[in-house]
């Protein structure tokens, strides 16, 4: 159920905010086996819902998010509510202030229902959290939900909430969106405040929504996007309307289909789904332009150096390996091996790649590509098989999304079909910096024609 549909029920008094919260709490209990939540804020949610009901009764409507239950990845600071980052390090951490994103969504009327599970400290893609439970994929519990925002993806895919916030440092919104069959938006770097969000890699972290529809993500962006005096890394560019109507067609829109990188080493069914989606966009009037991109394998290498070094810096005080899962500890160890000159060179190379990539937008308005090269892998798989080759699950899952973090571009993943095993496939649309409205408009039409 989308936010628009829930909003209509609320405003026609078919259901109250309080009833909606009770239904959500009941759904969380029924689906506890998913381990989608670390903390459920029952009493706070009931209190907020009662207040939203009183406001509606008095004629005060805060807008489309009024009374809508939402959840936050447990990396967002919530005042007075434990924020664990999925880690033992923060198991007792109760912030005395809250993230700007949290404040803005509550101000817009949304009701916070709780904190979602994640890959430990957001550093991984399986969401097999050794401390707070392995998140299951609602589409197939034998499969990974993706991560690191796995609890947010699972909560939306299971229909528990229509909207949950996540963060994306190397694909952590788009990967769970792809594997769980929901929509996830990573905005432009600097578009959404990161104040009050526990960092993983300062220059690669982004915050954004996972939703039941493109419009759900757009409505969230209208609440959270734009400058924030508390976050100096946040852009000063004013927020536009992130929720334009779906266009009637895509005439005049130039969509690039990459000739290199994105369609290499893909599962055949994923490739087929994405190409069918691109064909639908063409039938809707878009001009599909084959385009050769700068080498994104190189961008990936640069991004990995930056992420390893920055994450090691964030966790430099934490030296006890027993506090971390072995996969996370290994990455922190690897980060400590990156030399200072290598980090500096990586940031300089990144600037050059950003400039090189700017030229792409002279030829096309958007890029269309797969989000992940495979559908959700089996939860115990260490590798995925693509054709005759095997690839590490983490490297495969991040391969097509990580470079977009390094380039700071907005990108959305939306479902574009299923495999023969009924697993969702994600279509990734990528736009020029700060072009979220155009990206969202095209994604809305794509959602309609791909339904």
């Amino acid at each position: 159920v989308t936010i628009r549909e829930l909003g209509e029920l609320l405003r026609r008094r078919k259901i109250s905010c309080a009833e909606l919260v009770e239904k959500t709490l009941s759904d969380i209990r029924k689906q506890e086996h998913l381990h989608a939540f670390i903390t459920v804020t029952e009493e706070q949610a009931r209190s907020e819902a009662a207040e939203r009901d009183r406001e509606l009764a008095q004629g005060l409507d805060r807008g489309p998010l009024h009374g809508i239950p939402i959840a936050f990845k447990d990396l967002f600071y919530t005042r007075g509510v434990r924020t664990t980052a999925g880690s033992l390090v923060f198991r007792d951490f109760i912030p005395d202030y809250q993230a700007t994103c949290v404040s803005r969504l509550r101000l817009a009327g949304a009701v916070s229902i709780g904190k979602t599970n994640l890959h430990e400290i957001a550093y991984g893609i399986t969401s097999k959290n050794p401390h707070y439970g392995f998140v299951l994929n609602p589409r197939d519990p034998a499969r990974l939900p993706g991560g690191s925002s796995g609890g947010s993806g699972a909560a939306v895919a299971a229909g528990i909430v229509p909207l949950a916030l996540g963060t994306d440092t190397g694909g952590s919104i788009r990967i769970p969106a792809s594997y769980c069959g929901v929509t996830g938006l990573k905005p432009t770097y600097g578009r959404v405040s990161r104040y009050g969000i526990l960092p993983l890699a300062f220059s690669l972290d982004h915050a954004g929504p996972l939703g039941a529809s493109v419009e759900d993500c757009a409505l969230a962006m209208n609440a959270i996007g734009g400058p924030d005096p508390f976050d100096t890394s946040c852009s000063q560019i004013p927020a536009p309307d992130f929720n334009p109507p779906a266009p009637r067609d895509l005439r005049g829109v130039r969509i690039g289909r990459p000739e290199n990188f994105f369609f290499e080493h893909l599962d055949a069914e994923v490739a087929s789904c994405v190409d069918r989606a691109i064909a639908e966009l063409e039938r809707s009037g878009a001009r599909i332009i084959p385009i050769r991109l700068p080498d994104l394998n190189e961008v990936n290498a640069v991004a990995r150096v930056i992420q390893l070094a920055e994450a090691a810096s964030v966790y430099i005080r934490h030296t006890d390996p027993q506090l971390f899962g072995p996969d996370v500890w290994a990455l922190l160890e690897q980060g400590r091996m990156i030399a200072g000159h290598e980090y500096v060179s990586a940031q300089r190379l990144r600037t050059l790649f950003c400039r090189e990539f700017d030229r792409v937008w002279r030829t096309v308005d958007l890029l269309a590509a797969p989000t992940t090269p495979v559908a959700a892998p089996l939860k115990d798989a260490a590798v995925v098989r693509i054709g005759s080759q095997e690839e590490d699950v983490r490297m495969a899952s991040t391969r097509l999304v990580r470079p977009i973090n390094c380039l700071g571009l907005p990108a959305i993943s939306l479902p574009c079909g299923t495999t023969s095993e009924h697993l969702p496939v994600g279509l990734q649309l990528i736009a020029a910096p700060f072009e979220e409205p155009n990206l969202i408009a095209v994604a809305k039409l794509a959602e309609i024609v791909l339904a």
Partner: protein
Amino acid sequence: VEDKQPLPESENARIVQALRETFNLLALRLAPEMEPATIFVAVHDTDQEEPGA
């Protein structure tokens, strides 16, 4: 709960070395006289101002 045994240091070193083999070739492209602005990570927003500035 997954195996709590951390990777041996040599395995971490091997992974980083493999990354370096790609990365060091890229770093050779950087000329020392390149403009200093390449290190600052504004990414796209070049007209940043401190609040109240």
